[in-house]
């Protein structure tokens, strides 16, 4: 059998082991078969390279298609109303996302305030204070593994945890029910009954509420009251059935109510209104999100601390610094650019996260302002987008696309800040 016939019969499969041709064993540098074989292998390699390039370009293509399609869908709704208005069911065209932008930023603020100290603290503990004791070392390894696992827990499960832990607090402080109970109030709220006076035109006075379980009051006798300016005075009662004429002086009318006049509950809250459990508030939502991003913050900070050169630490120890002084003066400042970058990326994740907020705050989007106090409910951008995108009306579809553009721009801005900070700190 000649060499040529072998090379033509056998299919050129690079995976099949074939004996080395006799001619090559004898010392020839190449035979017809080996040339063909190597040509084939080179062709496969080229094809593979082409495949690599094509598939890699595919990801760029997907991104471009995504951005273009959303821009096309949403550009006509990129109006000032979008930034200043609020969601409206009656007039879709005048809907906007102002409360959602403020709400997202507020939640992000709470999230940063709670997740960053906890996350950076954990990272310092895990990276800088590595114990020598075998059991403590195992504990360290366990905590590390646990953190990587937490990073893989679906965000909606964190939402359910936040619902039990922050919204209801396992019902340890009583359950919040509309018009019945507000849980255990700590500070920042004064409760009144609002009662209409004789002055008319919606003029009303406030009567301090003593029994929180009574949602309404009926005025039967004179009692102390507070006017809108906060002055306390004695409320007078006028009985329409009695012979006394209705007072005519506006000042007196202002302090007098009809006998049997009913009044509803009214709560005057300051921005620091605080109660337990938190209920469906933006504080609860922010804390829930901080659980979601905590593993990301920890892992980024750990990597940043790990990349600080050991010689810096050794120099610090050599100068007689204690462990804590070394962390504070050497490791942490050197790692700060990386930590900041990781933190801002985590914040970007928090702003875009919808599922946990949906679970904690519910799917309602009817709110026309940002949060007024710590216990106020809030709308966020992703939840609003979810609501609009799920609505069959075409206007809302366009609004969703426009809101996505705003959201992506905000994320882009945050990432640019991260890159800028990283560059600036590196130079210093």
């Amino acid at each position, binding site marked *: 059998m000649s060499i040529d016939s072998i090379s033509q019969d056998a299919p050129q499969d690079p995976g099949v082991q074939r004996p080395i041709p006799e001619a090559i064993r004898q010392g020839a540098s190449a035979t017809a078969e080996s040339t063909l074989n190597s040509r084939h292998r080179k062709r496969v390699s080229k094809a593979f390279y082409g495949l690599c390039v094509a598939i890699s370009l595919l990801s760029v293509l997907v991104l471009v298609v995504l951005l273009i399609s959303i821009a096309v869908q949403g550009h006509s709704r990129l109006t000032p109303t979008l930034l200043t208005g609020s969601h409206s069911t009656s007039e879709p065209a005048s809907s906007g996302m102002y409360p959602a932008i403020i709400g997202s930023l507020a939640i992000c603020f709470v999230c940063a305030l709670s997740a960053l100290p906890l996350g950076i603290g954990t990272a310092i503990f895990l990276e800088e204070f590595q114990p020598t004791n075998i059991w403590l070392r195992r504990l360290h390894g366990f905590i590390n593994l646990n953190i990587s696992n937490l990073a893989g827990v*679906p965000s909606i499960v964190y939402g359910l945890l936040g619902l039990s832990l922050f919204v209801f607090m396992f019902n340890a402080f009583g359950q919040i029910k509309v018009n019945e109970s507000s849980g255990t109030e700590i500070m920042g709220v004064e409760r009144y009954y609002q009662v209409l006076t004789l002055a008319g035109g919606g003029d009303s006075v406030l009567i301090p509420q003593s029994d929180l379980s009574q949602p309404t009051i009926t005025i039967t006798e004179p009692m102390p009251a507070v006017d809108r300016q906060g002055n306390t005075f004695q409320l007078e009662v006028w009985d329409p059935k009695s012979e006394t004429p209705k007072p005519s002086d506006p000042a007196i009318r202002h302090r007098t109510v009809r006998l049997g006049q009913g009044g509803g509950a009214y709560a005057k809250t300051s921005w620091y209104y605080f109660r337990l459990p938190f209920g469906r508030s933006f504080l609860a939502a922010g804390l829930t999100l901080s659980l979601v991003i*905590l593993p990301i913050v920890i892992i980024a900070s750990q990597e940043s601390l790990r990349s600080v050169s050991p010689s810096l630490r050794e120099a610090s120890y050599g100068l007689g610094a204690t462990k804590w002084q070394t962390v504070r003066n050497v490791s942490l400042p050197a790692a700060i650019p990386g930590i900041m970058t990781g933190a801002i990326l985590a914040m970007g994740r928090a702003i875009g996260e919808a599922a946990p907020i949906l679970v904690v705050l519910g799917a309602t989007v009817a709110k026309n302002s940002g949060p007024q106090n710590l216990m106020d409910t809030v709308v966020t951008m992703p939840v609003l987008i979810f609501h609009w995108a799920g609505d069959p009306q075409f206007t809302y579809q366009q609004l969703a696309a426009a809101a996505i553009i705003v959201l992506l721009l905000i994320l882009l801005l945050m990432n640019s800040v991260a890159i800028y900070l990283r560059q600036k700190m590196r130079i210093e």
Partner: protein
Amino acid sequence: MVAVLAMCALATVGITVGIIVMLVGQSWNFFNSEHVSFKEFFTGTEWTALQSKNIDDAKFGILPLLSGTFRVTAIAMLIALPSGLITAVYLSEFASKKVRAVLKPTLEVIAGIPTVVLGYFAVLVIGPSLQWLTDGGFDAFNATSAGIAVGILCLPMVCSLSEDALHAVPRALREGAYGLGCTPFETSVKVVIPAALSGIVSAFLLAFSRAVGETMVVALAAGTQATYTMDPRTQSQTMTGFIVEMIKSENEYGTVQYFSLYGVAIALFVITFGMTLIGQLVRRRYRESYS
């Protein structure tokens, strides 16, 4: 001070414990109900917690939700795993600095896109294109469009984790292969990828668990009907999709229907936590062997 830091670290363990306590405690309300049996939960092929207001008609068999999750995840993995791995090979073995400078940021941007945006993309572009390509062979909301969007979402993750694994393969292995006359294709596929296999497998597992837990994309694009089928063209409510629908619905806190979401959540948690745990353990093993 060290004590404070240690408390921070232990708080992370507290979160895990909190999740488990919460899930077990709340789903106890579900499994303990007389309308629910474990056998039906694991083998029943109907899930009507949302549709039936009357508890006697409600059927709690998780298989339809599981099959929905499986369909979406399988499609996502079909897209994310090969393309993620090939992109990773390209980035670590072939790409020039210029190409890297474009490709890396692109992947980072895709990784940073909020999931609700990808869900909207699935409804806006992927679903209609599928319908157009097949002349209406797909439902308006279907498992495939959601799966493709989830695949796009997982791609950067598969890619960056696999690339880390490929990077950790010592240079000497590649040089040896080239010295023996291997082509770039043979070097990557027969030498580098097998050497990095454990890292790649762990990347796959982590991406799988991410896809199973993905919520907003499926809530928008996969539909709201729990169907027990393997047909990827139909609506398919997933486990996460059901949780969102239940939260959005008017069901009162305290009904069995409401607590059924915790039954689903505990199943979801067990699956994702198991996958992540195995993935992390595989990853750790491989890390030790090369550093």
